[in-house]
C-alpha cells in the first residue's frame, strides 16, 4: 500500500457504549477496536522517517514501529515494541490525552484526521491481557542495589517497573491499603477498569517488585531511615496532596465535599455497594460539581451513574477553556450532565442543622488572558442567582502536602511547595532522593507522571551505579 492509498482511509472512531445505558452503570465507556478495525486503522500510518508522534509522547513510545507490527498482524510484536519504553500500556491507551500529544502532531492529521494512536495502543495492550502473554522476565543480572519508591500511582509504578528491569531490588511504599494511587482511588471504573490496574501491579510483583502497603513515608518510616537501611536511592512520587477549596462561606456544610473524597469513597472504598461495603457516600438529588478539569468530569459522570435527578458542572470560564479532555466533556454531556459555564459559586446556603440547600452563583465574562494563557473570568455585576443543590463536589485542584518536607532534613521546595529538582536528573536537594509526578509540579496527567517515573528510573540507575 502506498502513501496516497493510506491517506485515503478514513479514521476509525472508537465505539462507545450507548449513552443512556452507560449513565446507569459503571461499565467501561470506550469499547476498543476489534482486530480487523485495528489493522485497518494501523494501515493509515505512513511510517514517517522523522516521526513527530514520538516526540509528542512523554515516554517516547516507538509509535510507527508498534503500528507497523499491528498492520502486519503481529500483535505480540507490537506490544513488545511498546513495552520497551512504556510499562503501563493498557492504562495509557485509556487515559492519555493523545489529542494533545502524539495525535496532535501526527503528520496524517495535518490534512485529515490523525491516526488513532491511543486506541491502537489500547488494542494491543488488551490483546496482551486477553491472551495472558507472559510478562518479560528481568533479563539483566541483579545489581545488588535497593531502591525505594514512595507512592504507587502512575509515576511510582512506572519507575518501579523500569528499575526492576534494570536489575534493582525495588520496594514501593503506599499509604493506602491497595496499590495504584490515583489510578485506583481517582479515575473511575468506567474510564479505567480497576482489574487492569491490579493486573499491572501483579505484573510488577512477578518482576520482583515488592509493595509495602499501609506505609506512610514521613510518618510510618522516614526517608533518612530508608537511606540508612541500605536503600541506595529513593524516588518520591506521593501525588498531588490536599484538595483545595474556594474558602467561601458555607463550604463546610454537610453535603459539600472534595472530589477526592467523593471519588475515593466510590472507587477505592466501593461505597456504591453500601451497606455490604461498609463505607457510605452521601449523594442527594441535585448535584453541583465545581470545576472544569478531568477530576470534575470524573466526579460528575460518577455522580450521574448513581441516579440523582440533576448533575451540574459549574465552571467559571467557558467550555473552550476547560482543562478536561474534549472526550470527557463530550461523554459527560451525552450522559446528561448539564453545564453551567461562566458561572462561579460565591457562597453556600444551608439549613439550621448544617445541610447545604443551595449555592449562590455569579455569572462571569471573559476578559484578557491571564498567566495560564486562558482568558480571565471576571464577575458580571448584578448577575447573582441561586441554584438549588443538596450536594456539592469541589474539584478545583490540589495543593502539595508538606509532610515529606517537614520530616526530611535538607529537602527543599519552591513555589507552592513543589520539590526543587535538578532539571537534568530529577534529583531533589537531598543526594540520592529523586522526585516526580504531581509533587514536582508539572501538568498533572497520568502520562506526564509516567514520563517523570521513567526519566527518574534512568537517572537513579546511573546514580546507584556510580555510588
Amino acid at each position, binding site marked *: 500500500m502506498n502513501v496516497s492509498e493510506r491517506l485515503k482511509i478514513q479514521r476509525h472512531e472508537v465505539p462507545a457504549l450507548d449513552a443512556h445505558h452507560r449513565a446507569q452503570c459503571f461499565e467501561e465507556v470506550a469499547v476498543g477496536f476489534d482486530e480487523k478495525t485495528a489493522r485497518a486503522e494501523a494501515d493509515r500510518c505512513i511510517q514517517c522517517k522523522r516521526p513527530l508522534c514520538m516526540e509528542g509522547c512523554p515516554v517516547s513510545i516507538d509509535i510507527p514501529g508498534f503500528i507497523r507490527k499491528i498492520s502486519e498482524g503481529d500483535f505480540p510484536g507490537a506490544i513488545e515494541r511498546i513495552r520497551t519504553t512504556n510499562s503501563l500500556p493498557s492504562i495509557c491507551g485509556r487515559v492519555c490525552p493523545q489529542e494533545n500529544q502524539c495525535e496532535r502532531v501526527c503528520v496524517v492529521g495535518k490534512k485529515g484526521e490523525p491516526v488513532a494512536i491511543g486506541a491502537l495502543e489500547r488494542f494491543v495492550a488488551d490483546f496482551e491481557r486477553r491472551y495472558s502473554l507472559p510478562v518479560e522476565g528481568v533479563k539483566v543480572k541483579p545489581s545488588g542495589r535497593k531502591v525505594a519508591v514512595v507512592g504507587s500511582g502512575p509515576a511510582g509504578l512506572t519507575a518501579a517497573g523500569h528499575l526492576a528491569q534494570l536489575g534493582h531490588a525495588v520496594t514501593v511504599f503506599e*499509604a493506602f491499603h491497595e496499590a495504584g494511587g490515583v489510578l485506583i482511588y481517582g479515575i473511575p471504573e468506567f474510564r479505567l477498569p480497576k482489574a487492569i490496574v491490579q493486573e499491572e501491579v501483579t505484573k510488577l510483583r512477578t518482576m520482583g517488585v515488592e509493595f509495602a502497603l499501609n506505609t506512610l513515608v514521613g*510518618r*510510618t518510616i522516614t526517608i533518612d531511615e530508608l537511606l540508612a537501611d541500605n536503600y541506595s536511592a529513593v524516588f518520591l512520587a506521593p501525588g498531588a496532596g490536599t484538595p483545595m477549596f474556594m474558602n467561601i462561606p458555607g463550604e463546610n456544610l454537610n453535603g459539600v465535599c472534595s472530589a477526592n473524597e467523593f471519588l*475515593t469513597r466510590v472507587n477505592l472504598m466501593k461505597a456504591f455497594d*453500601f451497606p455490604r*461495603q461498609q463505607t457510605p457516600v*452521601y449523594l442527594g438529588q441535585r448535584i453541583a460539581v465545581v470545576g472544569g478539569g478531568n477530576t470534575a468530569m470524573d466526579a460528575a459522570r460518577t455522580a450521574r451513574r448513581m441516579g440523582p435527578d440533576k448533575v451540574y458542572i459549574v465552571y467559571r470560564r467557558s467550555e473552550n477553556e476547560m482543562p478536561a479532555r474534549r472526550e470527557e466533556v463530550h461523554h459527560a454531556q451525552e450522559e446528561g450532565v448539564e453545564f453551567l459555564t461562566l458561572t462561579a459559586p460565591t457562597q453556600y446556603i444551608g439549613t439550621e442543622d448544617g445541610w447545604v440547600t443551595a449555592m449562590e452563583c455569579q455569572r462571569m465574562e471573559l476578559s484578557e488572558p491571564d498567566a495560564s494563557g486562558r482568558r480571565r473570568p471576571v464577575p458580571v455585576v448584578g448577575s447573582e442567582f441561586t441554584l438549588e443543590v443538596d450536594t456539592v463536589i469541589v474539584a478545583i485542584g490540589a495543593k502539595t*502536602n508538606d509532610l515529606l518536607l517537614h520530616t526530611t532534613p535538607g529537602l527543599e521546595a519552591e513555589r507552592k511547595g513543589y520539590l526543587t529538582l535538578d532539571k537534568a536528573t530529577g534529583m531533589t536537594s537531598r543526594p540520592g532522593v529523586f522526585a516526580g509526578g504531581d509533587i514536582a509540579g508539572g501538568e498533572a496527567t497520568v502520562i506526564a507522571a509516567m514520563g517523570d517515573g521513567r526519566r527518574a528510573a534512568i537517572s537513579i540507575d546511573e546514580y546507584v551505579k556510580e555510588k
Partner: protein
Amino acid sequence: MAKILVKETLAPNTHYFRIDAPLVARHAKAGQFVILRVDELGERVPFTIADIDPVEGSITLVIQEVGETTRQMGAMKSGDDIRDLLGPLGMPSEIENFGTVVLLGGGFGIAAIHVLAKALHEAGNRVVSIIGSRNKDLLIMEKEMRAVSDEVIVMSDDGSIGRQGLVTEPLKEMLDAGTVDRVCAVGPIPMMRAVGEVTRPYGVKTIVSLNPVMVDGTGMCGGCRVEVGGKTLFACVDGPEFDAHETNFKELIHRTRMFRPMEQRDPDSCRMLQQADVVSQKPAAGADHESRES
C-alpha cells in the same frame, strides 16, 4: 496485617487491644492516631493511640463498640489479625513543661489521655487527671491513670464511684484556685466543648482531640475539615489536637452527623453518628451538658 497480641474487655462494650505494629510503635508519639480496616469490606476508621511500647513494637488502642467496625473489633480475640493498620497519623501533642496540666477524659476518652498524661508527666509537669464515667462499671483505666498522674479525680454520674457530678466541676474549682497552666480534654464532643467553655473566662490554653469522619487520614480527602480560628483545617494532618477556644464545635457536631441519611437505611453503618447518639442517649459524666440542660 497487624496481629492482636492481647485483647481484654475493660468495661461492657469497651475493649483494650495491644497490637503488633513495630514501625508504628517506633515512630508514634502522644496525640497521634491510626486508621484501621478490619476486613476486606471494612470502613477506614481512625482511633487515638492510647499507649506506645517501642521495645515490644506494639501500640494500644481502647475501643468502644458504637458502630460496625468497633463491633467487629469487639468480637475479635487475641491472636486475630486486623487487615489494615496505618499510622502514626496526625501531629504529635505539644509536650513541654507547662507547670500544672489538667487532663480530662470522658468515657473511653480516658484511654486517649493516658498516653498524654504519661508524656506530660515525664516532661516534668504536675499532672492532674479528671476521669469520668456514668457509673462504677464503666470506669476504665483508673489504675493506669494513677501511675502516670500526680493526682486523679474520679467523677461519676450516679456517684457509684468517686464524686458525683461532671468532670468540669473539679476543673472549675482548680481554675478558681488559680493553679492551672494548661488543660487537655478528650471525650465526646459535647464534653470537650463544655470544658472549653469552662476554661474560656480564665484564659487557660485548652487543647481538645478531635476525631471527625476521615477516609485516608493523610490529607488527601478533606472529609475531616474543622473550622478553627475562622480557618478551615484538616484534623488528620493539621490536628487532631486543636485549641478548644478556637474550634467551631457546632459545625463539628453537624459534620459528624453527615451520614444520618445513610444511617437510617442501615443503622449499623456509621460510627460517628452512633457515637453522637450514644452520647446524647447515655451521657457519661460531664459528657453531655446540652442534654442535661435541656
